[in-house]
């Protein structure tokens, strides 16, 4: 510790005792008042020395692309050309009027519907596992594990499950279904199959969130309810559900933005074929396959705005929720 004094002689030697206290006591208010001596500038720069890399990367990799995205969306750029011609709002008009682009928004509805099933299943298992259960750790682990698996691996597992004459068809044949449909080949079914895969993948996450919220409710409430002879069903509606309403509401909002930005499962499993293309797949293909960076940027901006609006509504509906993201 003593040697550090020599690392920055000007910084530490110039400090008086009162300076030190002011630096700490003044936390939360403006302290770095410009002083006359040489240590002052260095002192004011100290926090920036710690922040520089983080803020630099943030500006470079988040804000710079976001700004460019806005700019590209008003041009007809193909991603290679040196010149970009401004085309005004044409790309945005295309996004909303070209049926082949706007149609893919409706694919999100399958995933949105599936997310209700997902939350219902998660809520059910979180509730029953919050009461005394044998092997509860084992069950919790099994239900949660799919969430951790690599997306490509999940895609393959379910391609195998859905293939004609595969696992699902075999199980159905035990129940007398002799002529099963093409799960991924039939355009009227493919989105249900993919949304079902998504339920299998993400239920565990909702479940663990809900379980954590239920377990943080005070224990005395159940004990009191038990003494009063309340049934489990009554306990659920009177204690558990009101207690975790906010987490459920938050998951619901996240499900909206999640179902709008579905990408991995349909991209890996079908590549967007048979009408399973989602808005993000369409955006990526417009940009990198069809080289219409301008149009793709407009699509990305539209999605971005929708997500921002949804998040804004979330903050309005759940104002108590801390904004500090943790």
């Amino acid at each position, binding site marked *: 510790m003593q040697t550090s004094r020599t690392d920055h002689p000007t910084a*530490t030697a110039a400090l008086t005792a009162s300076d030190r206290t002011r630096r700490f006591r003044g936390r939360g208010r403006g302290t770095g008042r410009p002083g006359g001596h040489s240590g002052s500038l260095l002192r004011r720069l100290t926090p920036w020395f710690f922040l520089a890399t*983080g803020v630099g990367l943030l500006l470079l990799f988040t804000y710079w692309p976001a700004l460019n995205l806005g700019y590209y969306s008003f041009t007809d750029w193909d991603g290679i050309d040196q010149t970009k011609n401004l085309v005004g709002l044409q790309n945005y008009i295309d996004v909303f009027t070209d049926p082949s682009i706007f149609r893919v928004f409706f694919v999100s509805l399958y995933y949105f519907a599936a997310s209700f099933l997902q939350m219902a299943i998660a809520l059910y298992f979180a509730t029953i596992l919050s009461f005394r259960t044998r092997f509860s750790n084992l069950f919790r682990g099994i239900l949660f594990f799919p969430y951790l698996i690599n997306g490509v691996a999940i895609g393959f597992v379910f391609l195998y499950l859905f293939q004609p004459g595969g696992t699902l068809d075999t199980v159905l044949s035990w129940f007398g279904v002799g002529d099963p449909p093409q799960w991924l080949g039939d355009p009227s079914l493919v989105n249900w199959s993919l949304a079902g895969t998504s339920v299998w993948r993400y239920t565990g996450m909702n479940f*663990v969130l809900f379980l*954590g919220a239920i377990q943080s409710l005070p224990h005395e409430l159940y004990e009191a309810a038990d003494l009063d002879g309340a049934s489990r069903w009554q306990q659920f509606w009177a204690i558990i559900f009101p207690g975790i309403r906010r987490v459920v509401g938050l998951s619901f909002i996240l499900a909206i933005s999640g179902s709008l930005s579905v*990408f991995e499962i349909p991209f890996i499993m079908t590549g967007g074929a048979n009408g399973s293309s989602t808005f993000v797949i369409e955006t990526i293909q417009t940009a990198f396959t069809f080289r219409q960076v301008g149009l793709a940027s407009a699509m990305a901006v539209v999605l971005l705005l929708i997500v921002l609006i949804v998040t804004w509504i979330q903050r309005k509906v759940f104002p108590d929720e801390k904004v500090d993201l943790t």
Partner: protein
Amino acid sequence: MSIATRPRNGLTLGMRLRSMSAQTAKYTSLIVASVVTLLPLTVVLFASLKSSTEYASTGPFTPPTNWFDFDNFVTAFTNGAMLEGFVNTAIVLAVSLVGTVFIGTMAAYALDRFAFRGKKLVMGLFLVATLIPSVTSQVATFQLINGLGLYDTKAALILLFMGTDVIALYLFIQFMQSIPISLDEAAMIDGANRWTIYWRVVLPLLKPAIATVIIIKGIAIYNEFYSAFLYLPSQGFISTSLFRFKGPYGAHWEIIAAGTIIVIIPTLIAFLFLQKWIYKGLTSGAVK
């Protein structure tokens, strides 16, 4: 039985029967859910242990004849260039994690322990950044990576993973608030400068938060498909190596199954050993 009809512990026979059937329903539903979760994985494991003729002649539920036939795994690992995928993933993982921890803890230290002009602005910038879904801005990010000459390099992935982790920053800030500031003051009186305080006092005390970030971010990077697919097309990443099985092995499900199992095994091992940390980390980081 006559004893049982008498109310005991305040329960009549009817109530006990009802609670027994409720118990049965509860365990039945748990077992059904476990089967639905594990069955898709089990049949893939079965397929991965069958030879191609055996695979063609048996159904998905027939267990493999030889449980120790790892030929498909060897084929998948060597012909599928999975080693390259694992090595690349390991390199990107290690560098990104070290970078994220240092960048995140330093930024958190500055934002929690200093008062300075522009602090509110910086906090706001980090906050708004979490609202931008990174998947949408890739169209423009791609041009940036390309312009920096980083397209098709591991550096592109490393920079993207390090540069976009706001959740980690918030975990660090939250944890740092619980470290008493009197420790900083004591070190300051001993003559320590800010860097020494960060390095010798704050960083060691942040270990639990660092462990949480390493685990949840490690899993996220291991599972990352999109960035690797877009920015590292000519080298394998664990996800993209597996994804490439789709073409050449399209008809050889036993090989694809083996590759899938190879990718899942490290996740399973990590989960079995780090369960507590994973649950804790994900619940604290997920609800944004």
